[in-house]
């Protein structure tokens, strides 16, 4: 699963640490998600999408391998 959290963060001008705080996870987890090393749960994906005011499908995209 791919995501464009990094782009959305740049648009919203928030850091990884700030996003991590808003969704109650560690900065490491946000970093891992951005680097596509960790696939978040549906709950976390929904929380992240809500921070950016977008739908989950706008932030997270299915990969060819999925």
């Amino acid at each position, binding site marked *: 699963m791919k995501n464009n959290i990094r782009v959305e963060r740049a648009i919203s001008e928030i850091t990884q640490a700030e996003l991590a705080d808003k969704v*109650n*996870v*560690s*900065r*490491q*987890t946000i*970093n*891992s998600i*951005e*680097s596509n*090393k*960790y696939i*978040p*749960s549906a709950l*976390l994906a929904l929380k992240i999408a809500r921070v950016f005011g977008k739908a989950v499908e706008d932030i997270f995209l299915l990969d060819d391998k999925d």
Partner: protein
Amino acid sequence: MRTNYLLPFKSRYFGIALILVHIPIKLYWDAQYPGSDIHRHIDSAVTGSTLFSPPHLFFIGTTLMVLIGLFLIAFSKEKVEDEQIVQIRLDSLRWAIYLNYAILLFSLVFTETNESTHILFLNMWLPLLFFILRFQWMLYRLNRSVRKNDADIHV
């Protein structure tokens, strides 16, 4: 909020203290009673002859200290116990169980029955120890990858 049945973050320090305190006690005992082989006492304890004798009680005390210490270190929460940490924790626990049973099966086939207390010892330490090492190693790798990503972004 799901209950994760983990101990508070700070209980790991109590666990480390228990293990550290056990070292001088063990060294003192070994210096006072050289040649007191704990395994021999345990083997004979099984037959009932030295059950709750001073060496056996010493063994119970020190073993409990280390075991409780390892348990506290293994099952205390991280500062931020989020879903990625939970996944790493469960993954490490799974590998610890795999390794434990692989060694258990191996020793079942290739050891004699009178060595069963050693297998019991192995079973007592190995899953906890392997779990802690693997879990901490994965956390270290996670933090290293974050630092590397940060460095890449700033280049």
